[in-house]
């Protein structure tokens, strides 16, 4: 009986050793992946910063103003002016079509209670 315990515990320790060995290599692999991903994030961040800078540069107000002037015949863009503010009353709402008046010979389908009364 005792020898069975000894063998079992020895097997258990060996199992643990194998597990620890595998974990060690798995950890190293993950660390390598993480540093790879971090490097990628760094590159992406750098790229993002460049794109943001380029976006800001291309959208700088002086350039947009020049572009609006160059393309005036196509776009017709003008600076925002106080006259462009309006009120709700000035907005033309679409006129609702009057469908009922277009019907010919309408028939009323409303009955009256007197007809039912005995």
């Amino acid at each position, binding site marked *: 009986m005792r020898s069975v315990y000894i063998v079992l515990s020895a097997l258990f320790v060996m199992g643990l050793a194998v597990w620890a060995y595998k974990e060690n290599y798995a950890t190293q692999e993950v660390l390598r992946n993480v540093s790879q991903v*971090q490097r990628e994030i*760094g590159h992406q*961040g*750098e790229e993002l910063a460049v794109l943001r800078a380029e976006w*800001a540069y291309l959208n*700088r*107000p002086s350039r947009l103003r020049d572009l609006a002037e160059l393309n005036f015949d196509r776009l017709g863009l003008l600076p925002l002016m*106080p006259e462009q503010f309006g009120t709700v009353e000035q907005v033309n709402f679409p006129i609702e079509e009057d469908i009922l008046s277009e019907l010919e010979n309408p028939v009323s389908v409303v009955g009256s209670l007197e007809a039912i009364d005995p």
Partner: protein
Amino acid sequence: MSMRTPLRPLARILKARSSGENPDAIERENLRLRHEEMRDSTRLRAEGRLLVLGLCFVSAFVVVGLRMGQVAATTPEEPRAVTTGTSILAARADILDRNGRILATNRTTHSLYAQPQEMIDPLYAANELVKIFPDLNKERLIRDFTGSRKFLWIKKQIAPEQQQAVHDIGDPGLLFGPRESRLYPNGKLAAHILGGTKFGREGVMSAEIIGQSGIERYRDDYLRDPANGDKPLQLSIDLSVQSTMREVLFGGMHLLDAKGAAAVLMDVNTGEIVSMVSLPDFDPNGRPTFAGQNASDNPRFNRAVQGVYELGSTFKIFAAAQAMELGIMTPNTLIPATPPFRWGKHRIGEFEGHNYGPNLSLTNMIVKSSNVATAHVAQQIGVTRQKEFLKSLGFFDPTPVELTEAAGAKPLLPPHWSELSTLTIGYGHGISVSPLHLAAAYSSLLNGGTRVTPTLIKHQGPMPKGPRVVRPEVSKASRDMLRAVVAEGTASFGDVRGYKVGGKTGTADKPRENGRGYYDDKTITTFASVFPADAPKYVLIVTLDEAVETSGPKPRRTAGWTAVPVAGEIIRRVAPVLGIRPDIETLALAQ
């Protein structure tokens, strides 16, 4: 375990007895044998244990030895669980406008350096380098490349296409180091606010960027802190408004042949500077050097913050407001206005010899911009009370705005504040302040009467009200007076329909550089305005340096003809961008 042998086996005892031997001898003999057997087995067990223990020790020592060998043989390595990839790049925090548009950011460029001992063909390399960078000196390069130097910088910053061209030279002695550089994508826009940066300590692999002026320098600690790399600094500036204001001011400055111009647009309630322009300006991507004599001609000079000028009649509203605050006058109180006002041997007259006498109401004093009447009011207020009031509006200290230059721009006050000083300061002469001072003071006076602190940082959350400067009724009465100036007085060009502009003009002759009197034909014209006057949102200060309007028979240099139309156009263009809806003003209200 063997069968236990009895110590006195009956068979042997009987046999011994019969042969007359001592049976005890048999017992002793058996006892001895048993003891020997026990001793042998115990020794065996002890030997086995010793062996196991020995094995344990040996294997432990072997493990320790192997590990020592491994540690000694491998190259040292930092633990890699904490990898920092992004924080080193893009270290300096971005600067954004109030809507999140980029005002300053970083980009990666390269620096170019040489290690002459690695070079294969120094003469060819020098030749090609001069073709790429025409500003390099060829002789000097050849001297450096062929001399005893082991290392030299060629260019601190190069563009990607230049880098490619240097690659194409193909010399192993020409090397690149990564460089972060500061980029201001909007160029000249908000140049004076942002300031600029320069390289601090430099190494081959990196160089630190430090702020050189403006907010880049003032908030350098924040911007440089690696912990703030992804937390941009958000300013109160609105890029669209800034752009519009610069465009209009630039046009106005050239149309009126002015030497310089400045404009400040401030939120009356929070003191946030929504836009601040100083012209001429510069490109912060390549800060210009200035060799001229007069500091105010330097394009890097921020007229709105550093330029302390006598701002003239714009100060009259402070005298009127204080008189109302003290309760000694109401808007309808009549004040003697017959020129000249005599004080000792000094005489105070009106602009261009006008005579508004014999009496003017306090409102009309502001509308007509009467020096004489204002002197009377200032005399009634007195030296001490006037000083206290102007101090409470912030005219005694540099503005606390977040720019390095602001601390150096102290207002110029009279060294001996006599009664004559009080009289002249009443109408804005004898005290020199910056347009930003004026903007903060107008905001404090007109927002309902609580002091505001000018700031360039966007404010989050509700703003606590500052200490009270004047009563709300006085603030309202002051706004009505300013509205009357625009509706019927000297600033009629500033009356933008729908925005109820109120404001006060100021025309001050420029003092001569030698300190002896004033120029006749050089003026600083200012228009300090608030809109909308009934529910104030913004204060706009426009200052033009040596502006002249020449459409009439003789050149006009007053603020009403120069600063006011420019300010009016700014309001007309900027107010819609700020989202203020024009109101239909009734005639009754305007009168």
